[in-house]
């Protein structure tokens, strides 16, 4: 058998030749329309294999620095294990991580050892999540909507202090099986059918004892603040809650209550068109009138109209109750006390004052 050599040039021959020799491009370019220069391009390009670059003394420092960094990185390809600890099972998976403004599925390799569950990321190496089996109270497979629109099975672990860890892999059932076996092998038992505290979006930890949320929803709130001695307004995103004690608005970004009104102070509610900022567009908004000390104050919320109407109804019922309870008003002319409805419809029986609307 004779060795032969094909004289055909291949694409790789061409690329190798180009990279070995190197390309240098130096271009000035002006793009003009109707004779008027509009875009300018000043292009300096050098493309070559690293060896050729170094030959010409380009990027030498960078090359050395980069290699020094790579040498320092000791490759850790699995998490550090304790004494007598060994890995039973490992699979690629994600874990729901939620802290502060960071909410996301973090990807890594899930390791099930004889002692704990670890989620480990190789580069840069970090233990993303770990839990010892003693801390797991119960687990369950739950179907959840994923943001991609599909429904998928997630493995939820109920931990001490009622924290819930959400995990997902391609085959969550298999993960559950292996995890269960590992926990049982350690002589621990899991509670069956334990009610999982369902993680609600917020209500943060602002609720007081014996306080219940009656109505809640996403809501923008027009926040007033002082700037350079002037009152300015700004719309901020958050959630509005009506509890059995108060109406309060939770600011999503700072994660705190910016507004709370005791429900007995609520006076009136209506949905009106309100100008948004400096734009000449008017949008439906929820206007709530309430008393602070002796003053009447107004706050403004906005969201889609359907939810605004719902809020109007809910708060409206509340204010009506208040009116029925203490709907006493004084006649504006003589000061006689009478119920507001009586005054408005029949006028004052002592001095004969009649509301402008009736006149």
């Amino acid at each position, binding site marked *: 058998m004779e060795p032969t050599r094909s004289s055909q*040039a291949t694409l*790789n021959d*061409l690329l190798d030749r180009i*990279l070995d020799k190197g390309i240098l491009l130096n271009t000035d370019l002006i793009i003009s329309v109707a004779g008027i220069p509009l875009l300018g391009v000043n292009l300096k390009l050098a493309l070559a294999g690293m*060896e050729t670059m170094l030959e010409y003394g380009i990027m030498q420092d960078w090359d050395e620095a980069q*290699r020094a960094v790579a*040498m320092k990185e000791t490759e850790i390809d699995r998490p550090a294990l304790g004494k007598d600890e060994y890995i039973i099972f490992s699979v690629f998976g994600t874990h729901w991580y939620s802290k502060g403004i960071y909410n996301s599925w973090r990807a890594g390799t899930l390791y099930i050892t004889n002692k704990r569950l670890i989620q480990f990321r190789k580069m840069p190496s970090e233990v993303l999540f770990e839990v010892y089996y003693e801390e797991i109270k119960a687990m369950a497979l739950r179907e959840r909507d994923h943001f991609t629109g599909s429904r998928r099975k997630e493995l939820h672990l109920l931990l001490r202090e009622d924290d819930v860890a959400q995990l997902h892999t391609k085959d969550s059932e298999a993960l559950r099986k292996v995890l269960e076996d590992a926990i049982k092998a350690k002589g621990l038992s899991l509670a069956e059918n334990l009610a999982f505290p369902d993680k609600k979006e917020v209500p943060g930890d602002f609720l007081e004892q014996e306080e219940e949320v009656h109505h809640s929803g996403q809501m923008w709130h027009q926040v007033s603040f002082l700037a350079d001695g002037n009152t300015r307004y700004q719309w901020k995103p958050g959630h509005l809650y009506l509890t059995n004690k108060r109406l309060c608005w939770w600011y999503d970004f700072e994660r705190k209550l910016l507004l709370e009104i005791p429900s007995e102070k609520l006076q009136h509610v209506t949905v009106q068109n309100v100008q948004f900022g400096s734009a000449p567009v008017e949008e439906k908004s929820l206007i709530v009138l309430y008393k602070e000390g002796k003053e009447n104050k107004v706050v403004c919320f906005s969201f889609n109209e359907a939810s605004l109407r719902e809020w109007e109804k809910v708060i409206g019922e509340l204010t009506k109750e208040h009116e029925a309870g203490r709907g006493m008003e004084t006649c504006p002319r003589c000061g006689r006390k009478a119920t507001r409805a009586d005054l408005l419809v029949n006028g004052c029986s002592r001095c004969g004052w009649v509301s402008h609307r009736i006149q």
Partner: protein
Amino acid sequence: MAIDINEDNLKHGLLGLIMALVEIIRDSLKHQARERMKSGILADKEMERLGRALMELDIAIEEIKEEQGITESVKGVRDGLDEIVDSVVDRLLNPERWAEEADQ
């Protein structure tokens, strides 16, 4: 010359094209890796790492090709590209052929 992509099976054709490009880039990287190793700047440990990384890449590419059953179409795409390059290079190197072709 047209690149022959199997029309009945666009997914395979497209995947074949992509894998062919990946292979071409890999071959170029391999060539550059050889050049760097020859230069003697790299430490033994670095060469070891480089070699292993390229080998893992090789294995991964072969696995994908076999899994998707596109070994043949990848080869077809690469041969097609090589032929284009060959004919272009051939013409550039032999300008006298232009005249011949023009005569025809």
